[in-house]
């Protein structure tokens, strides 16, 4: 078993996770530094999303260890993991993450409000991020009234509003055309770099993966770090 590389923010070793008879993860490894963008690539069903869910403390792995900032994640209670996600992590998914009945600015403000920030303050901060992602003109609209690319940028704003140290993005451009996909990726990585946040980017699109600093490939639940392999 290897120890976590020095200076890394989030590492995982020998992760295993089984659904029924399917080995979604079969000894996967991962590590990321602050400010680094790592693409997780691999064919459909290879375990990419499961790896992301484990790293993000959403799913507990069956075995293996995950360390965030020196703390073991796998032994945390559900409440601790929720708190970790709330304060340290940000999330962008392919779809389904905007609450349809809240306006865009309320959606962006949501994570701050979860942390107990007052409504006014949360929405002011939210508006700031929406400006950076060029969607501030949508603040009063509901998710159903905005385009896919706009909605995804709103989602990115929401993921960044708490200034997370790690941003998890699962196929963030999966539902978008190339133009809007590129726009989202540029804004996302720019914003992450400016705050020195690490980005775990699950994608099967290489053009999206090209926004990363390095990539790891997941195949049959096993990970392969291409940088170290070469």
């Amino acid at each position, binding site marked *: 078993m290897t120890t976590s590389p020095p200076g890394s923010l989030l590492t995982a070793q020998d992760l295993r996770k089984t659904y029924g008879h399917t080995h979604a993860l079969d000894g996967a490894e991962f590590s990321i530094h602050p400010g680094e963008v790592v693409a997780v690539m691999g064919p459909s069903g290879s375990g990419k999303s499961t790896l992301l869910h484990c790293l993000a403390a959403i799913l507990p792995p069956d075995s293996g260890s995950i360390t965030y900032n020196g703390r073991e994640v796998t032994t945390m209670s559900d409440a601790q993991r929720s708190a970790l996600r709330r304060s340290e992590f940000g999330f962008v998914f392919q779809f389904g993450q905007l609450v349809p009945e809240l306006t865009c600015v309320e959606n962006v403000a949501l994570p701050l409000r979860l942390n107990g920030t007052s409504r006014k303050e949360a929405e002011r901060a939210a508006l700031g991020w929406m400006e950076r992602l060029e969607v501030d003109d949508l603040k009063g609209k509901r998710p159903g009234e905005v385009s896919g690319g706009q909605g995804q940028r709103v989602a990115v704003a929401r993921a960044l509003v708490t200034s997370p140290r790690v941003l998890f993005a699962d196929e963030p451009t999966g539902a978008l055309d190339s133009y809007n996909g590129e726009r989202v990726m540029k804004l996302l990585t720019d914003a992450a770099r400016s705050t020195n946040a690490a980005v775990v980017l699950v994608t099967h699109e290489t053009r999206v993966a090209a926004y990363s600093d390095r990539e790891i490939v997941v195949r049959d639940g096993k990970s392969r770090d291409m940088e170290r392999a*070469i």
Partner: protein
Amino acid sequence: MSIGHTLLGILESGPRHGYDLKRAFDEKFGHDRPLHYGQVYSTMSRLLKNGLVEVDGIEAGGGPERKRYAITDAGITDVEQWLATPQKPEEYLQSALYTKVVLALLTHRDAADILDTQRSEHLRSMRILTDRKRKGDLADQLICDHALFHLEADLRWLELTAARLDKLREAVAR
């Protein structure tokens, strides 16, 4: 790419000196391969001969690069014709990569490794292009995207091949 037509196109926006032409070309189209002065000179003299450009004036000091060129009506027509003619799609087989994969299978090596390595290499190039795109202007973005999409096409082929490795293995083993 037709350098002659490209230079003619640049001239259409107004008369330019030889060195101006080279700079404009390099800026917009010559990221990977800047033009030599010789190339500009020889191209312009061919266009001059065909009546597509004319010399608008010569700057003091002499030398071929001091000439100022302007496009003629025939030249405008020629650019128009060139733009209207569809480009023949470039088909090229990934012969080298294909050979490698088949050989790997024949010799019972791990073909997936080859593919992963190749993808990694492609990604390295794509990252450089993406980075340039991020910092560059619109023209930069366009040219980089062109290259990126081509590289992506290679990778898509790689992915597909990877997904079909088992079948390929059977076919090769036969």
